[in-house]
């Protein structure tokens, strides 16, 4: 790897000022993605600013009942936090389904939001890639696309966002707090990541030098249920083929399992992972299910309507039925309160 200057930030604003002034500077947090990229030659910064000592590792309750998650909170600590586990199980489950215990101990909340695609061509500097080297071409077009997008892709890039956490945050309507040279601003997670369009080198709406300082989770109404389900090629330590984050409440507030039949959905917030360049909010399905009885048929039809816009690639047509089935199962289980199948039997990592 190319030699670089290393410095340690002690103040967020100073770090932002330094980084903004120098396009060759990158922030280093957990390093679980960036260090790999340095070794592989995917990126070669002149300077790294270590931000792990910044005082951004707290989790605080907000006055409105939400939670503010410091950007430097480690994934393991966030997943294990009692308030997160009890009020936002979708987030805890998503975090624990990602990476390995060792990586989660190092990876941070802010860094997880910024992890880059695992597209095999992005990760090999001997092949063209528009995301890595704008204008060089997309090797995934006509190549290996099992893990690639079925929604929102462009001719310039077929890559998917690999994060589990971000999918849960999208379904929670979380906001990202960003510090720039003009001060702090708040960006909805759903608008934080971009679709590739003709600028696939840009994963997010951040400008160079912007520093993520926190993520804010909104308060959820009483009776809200949430779950994360990840489908992958092995039982642990694999990126999602398809994942589903769902946050729902019910009009009859008791939900489930009454002898009178299925409950009626109130608000449904549904995000799909592994299918697009960003966590994919399934707004078509959400709209179709709002106020609808939570029957298998309704859920399935809503997902089919959502996925009607999907464009499968050579190796990933299966993602359409897989996403439909998985989302249907998650919503069914949230509606019936059964929960079977949400944690897979072998997934001992589920809290």
């Amino acid at each position: 790897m190319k030699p670089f200057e290393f410095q340690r930030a002690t103040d967020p604003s100073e770090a932002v000022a330094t980084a903004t002034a120098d396009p060759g500077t990158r922030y280093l947090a957990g390093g679980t993605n960036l260090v790999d990229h340095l070794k592989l030659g995917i990126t070669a910064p002149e300077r790294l600013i270590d931000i792990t000592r910044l005082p951004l590792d707290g989790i605080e309750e907000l006055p409105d009942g939400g939670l503010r998650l410091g950007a430097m909170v480690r994934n393991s600590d966030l997943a294990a936090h009692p308030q997160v586990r009890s009020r936002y199980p979708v987030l805890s489950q998503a975090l624990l389904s990602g990476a390995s215990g060792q990586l989660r101990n190092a990876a941070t909340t802010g860094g997880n939001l910024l992890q880059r695609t695992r597209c095999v061509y992005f990760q090999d500097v001997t092949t063209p890639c528009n995301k890595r080297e704008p204008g060089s071409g997309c090797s995934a077009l006509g190549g290996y696309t099992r893990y690639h997008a079925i929604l929102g892709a462009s001719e310039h890039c077929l890559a998917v966002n690999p994060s589990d956490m971000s999918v849960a945050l999208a379904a929670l309507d979380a906001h990202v707090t960003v510090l720039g040279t003009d001060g702090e601003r708040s960006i909805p997670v759903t608008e934080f990541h971009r679709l590739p369009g003709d600028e696939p080198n840009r994963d997010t709406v951040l400008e160079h030098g912007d520093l993520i300082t926190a993520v804010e989770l909104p308060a959820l109404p009483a009776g809200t249920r949430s779950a994360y389900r990840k489908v992958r090629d092995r039982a642990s330590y694999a990126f999602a083929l398809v994942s589903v984050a769902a946050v729902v409440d019910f009009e009859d507030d008791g939900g489930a399992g009454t002898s009178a039949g299925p409950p009626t959905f109130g608000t449904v917030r549904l995000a799909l992972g592994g299918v697009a360049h960003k966590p994919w909010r399934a707004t078509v399905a959400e709209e179709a299910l709002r106020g609808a009885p939570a029957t298998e048929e309704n859920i399935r039809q809503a997902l089919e309507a959502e996925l009607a816009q999907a464009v499968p690639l050579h190796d990933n047509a299966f993602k359409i039925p897989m996403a439909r089935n998985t989302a249907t199962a998650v919503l069914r289980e949230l509606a019936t309160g059964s929960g079977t199948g949400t944690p897979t039997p072998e997934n001992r990592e589920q809290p």
Partner: protein
Amino acid sequence: MTVQHTGTAGQDLERIDGVAKVRGLAPYAYEHQVDNPLYLHPLQATISRGRIETIDTTQAQAAPGVVAVMTHLDAPRLAGTDDAELAILQSPAVGFRGQFIGAVLAETPEAARAAAALVRVEYTEEPHEAELRADRDDLYAPEQVNAGFPTDTRDGDPESAIAAAQVVVDQTYTTPFEHNNPMEPHTTVAQWVGDELVLHDSTQGVHPVRQTLAPVFGIAPEKIRVIAPNVGGGFGSKGVPHAHVVLTAMAAQRSNGRPVKYALTRQQMFFLAGYRTPTIQHVRLGADASGQLSGIIHDVIEQTSRIKEFAEQTAVPARMMYAAENRATSHRVAKLDVPVPSWMRAPGECPGMFGPEVAMDELAEACGIDPIELRVLNEPDIDPESGKPFASRHLVECLREGARRFGWADRDPQPRSRLVDGWYTGTGVASSTYPARRQTGNTARIRHDRAGRYSVQIGAVDIGTGAWTALTQIAAEALGCNAADIDLQIGDTDFPVATVAGGSTGTTSWGAAIIAAAQAFRDRHGDQPAVGAHAEGEAGENPAAQEYALHSFGAQFAEVQVHADTGEIRVSRMLGVFSAGRIINPRTARSQFLGGMTMGLGMALHENSVMDPRFGMIVNHDFAEYHIPTNADVRDMEAVWLDEVDEHAGKLGARGIGEIGIVGAAAAIANAAYHATGIRVRDLPLTADRFLA
């Protein structure tokens, strides 16, 4: 002397190297302390076929910490270039993407890697081919296949037998490109001391490395010393030295006598360390309505590299597995512009027991009989291939014992009939086999160091199997002393010659030499040897191999769960029952069996090196994308064995256990997946998308 089987061999001894390993004190190749080393990072071709026109190393030469950059323009000339895999940097020709085309030597590994990225290469590219397909018109029959087996065999008239059969299975099965991926990467530390080459190498055989490299460098084998006390897995990929050993030794000729260290990155291991060819297996079985086989045909298509032939012996097990009067097997090979395939985890038997053992499951269903009974029905009296009696063939006992332990009697044969908590659940079985060979050319030396203590030397290598422990036990038993009185010394060409840790031959071949040395020692020095007394012994061929067919057998059972919504597939239970002759150490043996079964699980569900033929490159070239089983994938797994001593397997009575654990495992899982879901998948790996409804 007869070896009494009541001695220390057979005892459940802890690994004698275990404590050092868990404390990090057992040095692997890269960890040997050498003075003032240089670090190597290679240059690799980024085309699949063609030639280098220009190679500009100016920037790299000037980079900080760089001592030398070596390319085909200035590399030392090799004395022997017959082996095209090893004849690197001798010409501008490129034979496959990723091939070595140079190296940077620097004061740190980081500096070497950074400088390597500064080298600019221009090529003239020629069209390449990297995709194995059954419809290629350039498939050819190699002269022989790996391990010297005939390419084709034919007994009787299987086509006519199958045409006339009441029940026929005629299907094509495929196994993908797979990479061995031992945890310790291939690593060489090379230093020239005068005209002698010293190598700390991560290898399965120190003497084989010396024998292979001597003609390449044009020096006597005795001028090469190879040291490998601890090796972190090989699975065949370290069975022969690959090009990185040559590259490192060449670089050490340009280092002013300084040692040169090189460990392949994980990504490089997908280009340069061997792999298993993909296989396309056409299997035809003909039987009567009861399931009695009349014909077996196994035709295999596979690949090799255009620069060097390695033809896996995939169809070999079909030649001896089941009784059928009419049998034919064949291998046809495509030469592609791809890296050189090599040995990987039971070459031949492992892929070759996938297609036929799934076909047997299909035949059992077609005949309406239990798959175990089908195998019992077709059990041969003698080896169908050689006509010799089997020294020991306990396949039926393995199947019966497995059925009893696994609860097979309760099985409802109807597929897709059990849904447990949202998971379709089924069970499957397959047979396993592996030949029992003994390598000749092993010598051991025994010396009475001090009262009651013996040093035992042989150039064997423990690649993680437990050889340190098992050979100590064998030596103690042969000398009639305690294991604690043996000072075993292995992993160095300074010790007497030994063959490769491969083909499941290590323990039996090296053990035979140790037994021979012990016999020579006692013959010469008696039971009261003087301190300093010593003797050598050499093991010859196993004479019983002339009269008997020597094979191990086993039965693999699997329970598989497939999620009704998502198609996810998990192996909830595995049982292997093996007949492998005498077991020298039950603790390390169990580890080896379980390791083999786990690799079989990986073969069944995960492993798949994805070739992008446009680039001629495996694109999923790291452990995040190339999946092997994680702990969470390995659930209830059990390995047991029949209590036996094979009296035809030499004085030791053992047949070797390194590879049989993987054989048949993938077929058992595929058969269980069919029973779970009613979906017959004939192409590995079995992934969720194949089971989605």
